[in-house]
């Protein structure tokens, strides 16, 4: 892989000479394997060795004041993106130079500014992850299968080595190299199911049997199906569901674009209390190593850690090159445009306490097709996925009765979910943001949360 990096960097001087415009290249090299397994039927086992080169070019003249801030060019600038799966930087540059005159002015884009590069080379690379092959992974999974022939086991095991290189005409040069893995396992038996997942950088500290045992422990605890009767319930959200709630909070309330448009639920309220709940502290922090991502955005700007909500107070929002009014306001969230590496502060409860403190509790492990129903309220809707259980606690016994609650539709205001959160687990979990394959999206770190006074009516959950 190093030869590609050398080739691109060696051409930079020549390309700077050739181009009358500012530009930057984004080179991604990835070696990825996804072993997808199922108990009795192998499905996909995919390897991808890829190279991706993107040119971002602006009509900003190179001799412009290199310290120019975004305030100085209020009328916008032209910007074009050209990508290729070949290492052809000179060809892309020539295409870009030809295309710029015809491009339209984007009045949000104010041209390139030199990012404040604080890390020129970052390496979080682990040999055990890089050396994993489909065969070694399959053999480990086969040993699980032989131990549990009475159950259906399926999922994925991804391993990946990634190198990002960013090189710009304004002097930007960043290199980020890392390994990461994702493991997901779903176990089914007699119509019941349970799942576990784990992500990380170092496979050397990963124990597949321990992960499987977690899923099987949940599988064994369950009893037959019972749809919860109409009434008010405590709902405990598992880490995957909490991660989705945080995602919607970020998307609907904490992006710079929504703030400019006035469509965020936080618009005009920054610095104000959104709700009274001292338990809620939500932040965005790529510097926590568990969030597993790059420390810079697609323009090479360092990602800044943000406090989104502190005790219910709206603190900061995420800005990009396009939405920031000044260079200082840019928080390095180009690409997604939103906070995507979130941490929800832990509480003091054990997970069992969350289930047993109330007489009736519904556990929602994860959502299926959650969508935005109304951006302004805000409101999300969807249904729960496998892993929705009804816990019935009897104070005379230590163990609650657990029933499979099936799939329930929900209509939630994600802000009210945080407002009504009465307890959080002291353990937190790392939840991946989608598949890791060839993306810069990382992970959230969240606890279980318990939300009281959720209405269940006709098998549907409401908190609006």
């Amino acid at each position, binding site marked *: 892989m190093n030869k590609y990096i050398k080739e691109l960097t060696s051409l930079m001087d020549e390309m700077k000479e050739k181009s009358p415009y500012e530009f930057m290249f984004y080179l991604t090299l990835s070696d990825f394997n996804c072993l997808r397994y199922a108990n009795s039927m192998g499905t*996909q*086992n995919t*390897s991808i060795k890829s190279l991706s080169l993107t040119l971002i070019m602006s009509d900003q003249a190179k001799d412009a004041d290199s310290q120019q801030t975004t305030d100085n060019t209020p009328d916008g600038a032209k910007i074009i993106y050209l990508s290729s799966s070949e290492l052809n930087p000179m060809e892309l540059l020539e295409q870009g130079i030809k295309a710029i005159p015809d491009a339209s002015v984007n009045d949000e884009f104010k041209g390139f500014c030199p990012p404040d590069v604080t890390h020129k080379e970052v390496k979080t690379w682990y040999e055990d992850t890089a050396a994993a092959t*489909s065969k070694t992974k399959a053999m480990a999974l086969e040993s699980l299968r032989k131990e549990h022939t009475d159950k259906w086991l399926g999922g994925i095991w991804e391993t990946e080595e990634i190198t990002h290189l960013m090189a710009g005409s304004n002097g930007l040069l960043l290199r980020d190299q890392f390994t990461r893995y994702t493991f997901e396992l779903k176990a089914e038996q007699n119509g019941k199911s349970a799942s576990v997942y784990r992500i990380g950088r170092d496979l050397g500290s990963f124990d597949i049997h321990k992960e499987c045992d977690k899923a099987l422990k949940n599988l064994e605890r369950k009893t037959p199906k019972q749809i919860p009767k109409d009434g008010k319930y405590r709902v405990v959200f598992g880490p995957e569901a909490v991660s989705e709630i945080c995602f919607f909070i970020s998307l609907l309330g904490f992006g710079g674009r929504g703030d400019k448009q006035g469509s965020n639920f936080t618009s005009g309220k920054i610095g104000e209390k959104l709700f009274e709940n001292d338990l809620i502290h939500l932040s965005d922090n790529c510097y926590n190593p568990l969030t597993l991502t790059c420390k810079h955005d697609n323009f090479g700007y360092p990602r800044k850690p943000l406090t989104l909500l502190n005790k219910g107070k709206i603190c900061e929002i995420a800005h990009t090159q396009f939405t920031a009014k000044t260079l200082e306001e840019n928080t390095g969230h180009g690409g997604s445009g939103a906070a995507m590496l979130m941490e929800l502060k832990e509480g003091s409860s054990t997970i069992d306490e969350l289930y047993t403190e109330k007489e009736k509790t519904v556990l929602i492990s994860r959502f299926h097709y959650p969508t935005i129903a109304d951006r*302004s309220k805000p409101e999300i809707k969807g249904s729960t996925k496998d892993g929705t259980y009804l816990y019935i606690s009897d104070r005379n016994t230590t163990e609650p009765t657990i029933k499979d609650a099936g*799939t329930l539709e929900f209509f939630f205001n994600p802000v009210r979910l945080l407002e009504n959160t009465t307890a959080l687990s002291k353990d937190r979990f790392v939840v991946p943001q989608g598949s890791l394959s060839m993306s810069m999206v990382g992970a959230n770190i969240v606890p279980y949360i318990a939300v009281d006074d959720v209405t269940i009516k006709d098998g549907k959950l409401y908190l609006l």
Partner: protein
Amino acid sequence: MWNKERIKTLSDKAIKLLKEQGKKCLYGEIRFVNQEKRNISSQNGNCSTGSDTEKGYGIRVLTEGTNSRQGWGFASTSILDDETLLKIVNEAVLNGEANQLFQPKDTTTVKFEGSTEIGTYATPVEIDPFHIPLSELGKRVLTMEEKVKGERAISTSAFISADRQDKYFFNTTGANIHQTITYIGGSVTVMVSSKEGNHNQSCSYPAPAGNFNTAGLEHIDNMNIEKNAETLYDTACEICDSPECEEGIKTVVIGPQMLALLVHEVAGHALELDRALGQEAAYAGRSFLKTDEMTKLVYGADIVNIVSDTTYEGAVSTYGWDDEGTKSRKVYMIKDGIHVNYLSGRGNAHLLGLKSAGACRSIGWHRQPIDRITNVNLLPGDKLTAEEIIASVDDGLYLNIPCGWSINSDRNGFRFSVERCREIKNGKLGKYLRNGAFSAETTPEFWAKCISIAKDKPANLGFANCAKGQPVQVQYTGHVVPQAVRFDNVNTGEASNE
């Protein structure tokens, strides 16, 4: 575009290397894909244009080990040198061998037959979107967006997106196929705020995520987006100021865009054989259409006929061959209300003794082909026109343009909400209602309520955003659907109030 000489050299070498593997590689194929994309979008008057090209190849093999088990392996790369080719062949075989560990013992009793097809296919294109300057397309998108602006608009957006895939396919059984498929779609959307500022309403044409076909820029012309956009802002304001749709049990007439998504989610996905076989169970879900009930299960009323048709002119999943070389074809999936077949490729179809439906598809060089929705089409009726169907309803709702959905993971049971919900009173379309929705506890129960299907020329609609598989594949899926279908006794209304 590909250099044909380079393709020939690499493919000859790959096939030779695959054949040299002997029994380790029972079957092998190499698929080259050059993908060129153009995305022109604007939001609130800001236009951004982008083009993206990527090329590479994927090698898929069926391996057999000493334990008499078979396993599929796939490896791919965008690096086109000879040294990498050898690595990719070896990695595909290693991945296949790893997969053998999960196979049932009796896989060797089923013989996989590779395609022997030879030929070429290209999407007919009248106006090539890749020959139009990006700046011209940018101006057009801005014009589309300009039409939906208004005082109460809090957000406007429009896009045109074009994608061309130039593909070569070769395998160890002699197939040699070259295809050039051109996809194109676009749409315009406006979101307005209510007078009191307490709720918003989106309106889009032809649908929020656009309507994609295999065609050239003439598809954008034929949709008349600019013309239809002219009334969109007023419609959005009218809906925004309308009363909410109340919960109830009603007769509904569903319009084409909503039908396309309905067919997609609860017919298309349910018919995918990999779901029925449990291969998608850990991610996308299973299917309520069980393999042992095929040809017996009643999916809906006997007027319901659903086909997979990859030959339908201009539809977004129309091609010459699928991504393992099976000739495009039309196959009944639901015949007279009965489930009779699955969307499948050769790899899974032969496990049930079926012929491939020509539905084994991949999104590019870097993904293994899997069983996918193709053009899954609800066939028109033969009695009433759409207008006559609406005229036949005394008291009901007209529902069109989806804006939200939740569907059970086995595709049995759902709720959809729509942008456009209008009362039908005494056979005539009446006022708009806000937050219209409909739901069903089970999918067959819903399709059993299908009373009439319009006989007019159907609408050719396509999506560009269907996600499935791990690593995920976002694929084009088409649905040619009637202009209107009537269902009686449907649960309606947005249950968003406690």
